[in-house]
């Protein structure tokens, strides 16, 4: 504002009216304060701190391509580790001649079946009693068919 400029200019004059002299210090204070600057050491310390803060970032930026490569290699390795055994066992299973494991007689079939049921009973933790009952029942059924 123009009024402010006039006042500022007036109070900068060396000889001002004695009536207003007490306010001159205030304008001198404004003038002094407007020239106040950061100490010279500040810049040095600021740039040192900035450099220190940037160091880890620069390191990370430098290492990023290598970290990506290692991560990619790990991913591929893990995928192979998980997929390979499955493919391998499937290929092995495909090559087995299952016909030679087929039972030739009803007795053999019954024996295999009993054994499977026993294993199943144990696996299901139903106890030996339950397994025996199942076997007994199977025997009864097989006798009925004979």
């Amino acid at each position: 504002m123009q009024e402010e400029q006039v006042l500022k200019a007036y109070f900068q004059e060396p000889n001002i009216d004695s009536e207003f002299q007490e306010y001159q210090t205030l304008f001198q204070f404004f003038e002094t304060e407007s020239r106040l600057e950061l100490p010279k050491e500040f810049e040095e310390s600021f740039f040192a701190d900035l450099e220190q803060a940037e160091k880890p970032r620069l390191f990370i930026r430098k290492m990023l391509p290598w970290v990506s490569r290692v991560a990619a290699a790990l991913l591929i390795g893990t995928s192979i580790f998980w997929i390979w055994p499955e493919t391998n066992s499937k290929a092995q299973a495909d090559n087995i001649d299952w016909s030679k494991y087929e039972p030739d007689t009803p007795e053999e079939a019954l024996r295999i079946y009993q054994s499977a049921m026993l294993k199943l009973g144990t696996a299901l933790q139903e106890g030996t009693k339950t397994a025996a009952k199942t076997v007994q029942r199977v025997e009864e059924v097989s006798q009925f068919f004979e």
Partner: protein
Amino acid sequence: MYRLSLSILVNPAEAQDVVQEVLMKFWNQRHRLQEIKSLDAWALKITKNHCLDKLRSKHRRVEDIQMAPVKADGQANAEQLLERKELLEQIQRLMQRLPEKQRMLMQLRDIEGLSYEEIQEVMDLSTSQVKTNLFRARKKMRALIEKTVNYER
């Protein structure tokens, strides 16, 4: 930024810390600085907010406050320089007696010479609020000076 933080915090070391924090913030946001319309006003606003946060932090104690030394320059003899330095320090003390908002407004307008629009942006105030508070601050400062002068007489 330094002058504004010094006027709010009074302590030069704390004011320097704030400037450093704000500059660090600028550095970290340097890619977004172009989006800012008035960088000066934004910088002062961030500085002001940082200072107020610091001022209101529980850790700050009144006894920690150390007044910034006032430098009396100009061509004068030692006695005159000392007298002027004392007067300036007296004004500085009187300024500290102003409410925070009024002190900041005087700092921004009378010391930094910011326009009313810029002050509005920094302080989040309307033009009329800026003008009213500035008027009150100057009036209060005038009364404080008169009171001091009359007391000394």
